[in-house]
């Protein structure tokens, strides 16, 4: 192996890549990069194998089009199969989704560890995961959104929540360093303020002698019986999607899978892992946004893309509320209507603010390998109880907008009026509970390779090890067996660091 090398796309006319290391880590996002750097710091030879290309901030796109083309998994076209087609948002690039998210840092709530112990037999993780989260916070620099970068949408959200007396209303803590508030989180921070893993843990792994292989989607885990011994696949060109030469990266000690809640289960399916729980218990934070209309310009794209949040409703009814600024490109399709009617609505862009909810949904879905192609098949839909929570979130956001001084709201519900005034708020009490009426997304994903004590209902144990296998560990959101109700990046990093430390300790 070439120590400290980066191997990018190799065409079919180039020689195959064949390397051997102690540990192969599949994926370079929150889980993969954290696992890799932990192993490298422990003196191990590590290879990170990432499906996407390695893009530095200078390479980041500026437009939403470029973001979908260069950073998103499959152009962001992955949607759930179920009653409604809701997008499953994930990145495909070195750094994974940490490149395109808002870097929101929330510690794993205590009740989650209790739930894991009570319902899944997972004990002994709390102190170690929280210690790892402490370390990650120190290393990546976590700060509250600076006052100069808050922007009017975030300020209004705080004002509205405070006016309603919500028990929690705060400016977010994020993995950023002196955020400039350019509103470009979703396309990657070209100012290097967001601490995505392609800027820290991946280069550190490389500096410590690790190999980084990019544009290299893993097709299969190599095994000898039930012992994982490496990975293989073919390079894929970042723009033409042409297949390149084959790569094989062998693992002397273990393969760590951190390819995401949708791709990790599929990779295990394709590699012959036969677990009755594989691909099951997929969960998410489905959510949508409500626009508020204000007399004065809000200019929501000025300031942090996401800067305010509330967890006041995390336990009851099960919601997280946040601001989210989206550019004109995305508002254009998000607004109902077409023709002159649509253009008249869009003319008010400067005066609108979008705030959204993420439902701590108890509904579960499945992830399966497709018969053709590589796109995971995600079946997921919200049950009636979760849809009630979904609607409750819409009502909370609407009240918050009016408390902040909005003159109207745009609920974005098919079949309902485009604009509602304060006196129309009661209409939301009877808003439809059909998922098809909403434009929503699944932003935070969990499960598919869930951890637990019982191999009949879980895929990995409390150290991320796949039941019945040797040298095969999963270290990403797919192991999380419950819905956190908060942004999952910190939990993923804490778990990945803990599992990697366990590997080093034998």
């Amino acid at each position, binding site marked *: 192996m070439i120590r400290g090398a980066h191997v990018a796309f190799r065409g079919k006319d180039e020689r195959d890549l064949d390397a051997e290391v102690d540990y192969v880590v599949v994926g370079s996002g929150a889980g993969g990069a954290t696992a890799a750097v932990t192993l490298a710091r422990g003196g191990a030879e590590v290879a990170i194998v990432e499906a996407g290309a390695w893009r530095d901030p200078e390479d980041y796109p500026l437009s939403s089009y470029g973001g979908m083309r260069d950073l998103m998994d499959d152009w962001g076209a992955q949607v759930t199969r179920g009653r409604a087609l809701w997008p499953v948002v994930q990145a495909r690039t070195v750094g994974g989704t940490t490149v395109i998210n808002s870097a929101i840092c929330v510690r794993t709530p205590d009740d989650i560890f209790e739930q894991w112990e009570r319902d899944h037999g997972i004990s002994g993780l709390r102190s170690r995961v929280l210690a790892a989260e402490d370390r990650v916070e120190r290393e990546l620099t976590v700060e509250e959104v600076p006052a100069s970068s808050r922007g009017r949408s975030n300020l209004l959200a705080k004002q509205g929540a405070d006016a309603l007396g919500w028990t929690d209303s705060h400016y977010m803590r994020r993995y950023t360093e002196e955020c400039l508030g350019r509103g470009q989180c979703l396309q990657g921070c070209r100012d290097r303020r967001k601490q995505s893993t392609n800027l820290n843990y991946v280069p550190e792994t490389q500096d410590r002698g690790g190999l980084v292989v990019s544009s290299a989607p893993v097709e299969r885990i190599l095994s000898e019986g039930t012992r994982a011994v490496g990975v293989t696949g073919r390079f894929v060109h970042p723009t033409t999607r042409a297949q390149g030469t084959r790569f094989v990266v062998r693992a002397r000690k273990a393969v760590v899978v951190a390819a995401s809640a949708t791709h990790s289960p599929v990779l295990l399916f394709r590699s012959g892992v036969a677990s009755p729980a594989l691909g099951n218990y997929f969960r998410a934070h489905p959510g949508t946004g409500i626009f508020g209309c204000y007399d004065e310009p809000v200019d929501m794209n000025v300031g942090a893309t996401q800067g305010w949040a509330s967890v006041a409703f995390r336990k009851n009814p099960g919601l997280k509320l946040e601001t989210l600024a989206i550019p004109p490109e995305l508002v*254009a399709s998000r607004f109902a209507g077409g*023709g002159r009617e649509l253009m008249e609505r869009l003319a008010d862009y400067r005066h609108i603010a979008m705030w959204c909810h993420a439902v701590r949904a108890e509904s579960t879905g499945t992830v399966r390998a497709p018969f053709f192609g590589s796109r995971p098949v995600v079946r997921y839909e919200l049950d009636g109880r979760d849809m009630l929570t979904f609607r409750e979130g819409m009502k909370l956001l609407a009240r918050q907008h009016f408390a902040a001084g909005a003159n109207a709201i745009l609920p974005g519900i098919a079949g309902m009026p485009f604009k509602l005034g304060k006196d129309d708020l009661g209409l939301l009490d009877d808003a439809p509970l059909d998922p098809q009426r909403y434009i929503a997304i699944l932003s935070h994903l969990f499960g598919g390779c869930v951890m637990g004590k019982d191999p009949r209902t879980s895929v990995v144990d409390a150290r991320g090890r796949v039941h019945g296998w040797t040298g095969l560990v999963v270290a990403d959101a797919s192991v999380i067996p419950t819905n956190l109700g908060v942004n999952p990046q910190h939990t993923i990093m804490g778990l990945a660091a803990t599992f990697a430390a366990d590997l080093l300790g034998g």
Partner: protein
Amino acid sequence: MIWLVHSAIVILYPRTAALPGAADCDLEAFLLRFRREAAPLVWLGVVLGAVLFHLTPVFTVRVPLPAFMLPPDVADRHASRISGSRIYLVRQSIFLVKLAAGLAWGAHPDVRARFALPALAPDPGTWRQH
């Protein structure tokens, strides 16, 4: 196919006194790039959405003509009605066309200027090769 998609988008995003329309936003060049670069299924979805858009005026405005042959005010009424169709898959298909169009329209310097946003530099489209 480009023509079909182009004509649907121009009806969905017409020029108004306040804002440039999609036709003012280098739409042709954008669609050529989009067809070349997008995942094939994404492009196929946009084309199917545009076909649906053109074939449905008989249901929305009761005129048995494709949308590109309608007088502007009737086409505008069709755009409004088909976007809010009660049939989910129809609504989603038009949503996909609107999304693709929005990517071109919303990123155009003239549109961004109307919203007091700075023009975007071109996407580099580069990556680390070594």
